[in-house]
């Protein structure tokens, strides 16, 4: 009996699924894993491959001619620069995220005023979206807390990491006393707890996506983009703590 099933299966000509490669900002990891499964359930003939890294690294890969179809960036700067260079189509916003101040689980929560009491801070490097958001946050907070506060904070920075997940994992490991990450990372990365930051100081993170022009499955890109923006897609993102695209 088993043999017959196998034989029948072998006779059925099964077309190889078409690959759709999505380059996604590191903070989208869990949400995009779920979106990938949901999309593949709806489109059995498509195999979605999600590649995660800091948005700046993905932008560099696109400039080096990586064969991929969709770019989902955690800030406006990288994707608009690529659009101006003619490498990706028109970007559209599909989600937002808030910044939080993360500390290792079990440690007392910190706020901006008490941030210098942490002895080791880890931030994102320049160009890494969370690094640039952190810089904007510190610039705004400096007005309130003063130049000495800023200097104290900067002097406690021990590493500038290349993606928000590398930042968050240093907190989860207990090697960093505090770090600015997205609220979604504070949920996704184990060993972390977080306090919200004042909305008047902390910028909102904007997530934009666009088709990569000349990608191998570029005709599938709009299907993925509208799936992410659909009610079902937005519900998955909301489940993982992302805010809707519309402000």
């Amino acid at each position: 009996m088993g043999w017959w099933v196998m034989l029948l299966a072998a006779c059925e000509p099964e077309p190889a699924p078409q690959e759709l490669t999505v380059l996604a900002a590191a903070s989208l990891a869990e949400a995009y894993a779920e979106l990938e499964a949901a999309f593949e359930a709806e489109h059995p003939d498509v195999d979605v491959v999600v590649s995660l890294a800091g948005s700046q690294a993905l932008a560099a890969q696109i400039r080096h001619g990586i064969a991929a179809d969709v770019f989902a960036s955690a800030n406006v700067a990288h994707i608009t620069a690529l659009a101006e260079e003619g490498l990706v189509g028109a970007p559209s916003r599909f989600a937002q995220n808030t910044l939080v101040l993360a500390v290792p689980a079990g440690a007392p929560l910190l706020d901006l005023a008490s941030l210098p009491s942490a002895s080791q801070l880890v931030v994102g490097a320049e160009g890494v979206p969370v690094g640039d958001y952190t810089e904007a946050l510190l610039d705004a907070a400096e007005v309130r807390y003063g130049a000495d506060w800023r200097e104290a904070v900067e002097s406690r920075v021990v590493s500038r990491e290349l993606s928000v997940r590398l930042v968050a994992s240093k907190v989860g490991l207990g090697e960093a006393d505090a770090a600015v990450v997205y609220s979604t990372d504070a949920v996704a990365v184990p060993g972390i707890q977080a306090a919200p930051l004042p909305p008047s100081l902390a910028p909102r993170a904007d997530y934009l996506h666009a088709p990569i022009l000349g990608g191998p499955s570029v005709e599938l890109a709009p299907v993925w983009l509208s799936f992410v923006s659909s009610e079902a897609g937005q519900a998955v993102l909301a489940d993982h703590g992302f805010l809707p695209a519309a402000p």
Partner: protein
Amino acid sequence: MIRPSLLPAGVLLVLLVLPVVGLALGTGPTEVAAALALPETQAALRLSAWTSLAALAAVIASGTPLAWWLSRGRGRGRAWVRALVELPVVLPPAVLGVALLETFGRRGMLGGLGLSLPFTSGAVVLAQVLVGAPLFVLTAAAAFRAVDDDVLLVARTLGASRRGAWLSVALPAAAPGLASAAALAWARGVGEFGATLLFAGNLPGRTQTLPLAIYGALERDLAQARALSVLLVLAAIAVLAGVQLSRTGGRRAR
């Protein structure tokens, strides 16, 4: 003599050289000079220079006696020690980085002692020692193996102390091999990337070595990454040339 098949050998040689040629063709001297002028580059250069030399000093000081001991016999104990020394060579650098965090991190095995190495220049040096030491010890042991016990004995009968015999006979005889061992260990240490990134972090001036600066630059400014890469290639060629000279020089002296 069996005539080797030249075609695959030629293909391999071309493949070995091609990336370096590609790198050199893509970068001009003005690009390298511009990259050298950046404060970030100078900080990375200085850090890479002093950490790799500190690591090399530690490797030579501790690795030379170990290599000598390994070279003086083939017992089971030595085989086990040799396998231990080889371990970091076969471990992926990322594994080494995680292992170092689990050992020397705040919550690591030794964290209870109040020791916290991650994010310090000491972490950079430790990673370089661990990847460089095996290369030094194994190459140096091979060089020491060529030193005959009888020659040492003769030196002893001529009145040399144990240490004196070793210094005046064994060390000079193995010197060219020791020089290549040191050069290999130093080059491997300078190139260390994975374990450093995970264990030491990435802070200009403190833990951002040249390879980390190249990786960071690759995401911002390709020209800078290329120029820094050319710098490291030049350093590597200088080391190779030095080793070659010390080998032929050593041979001529004999």
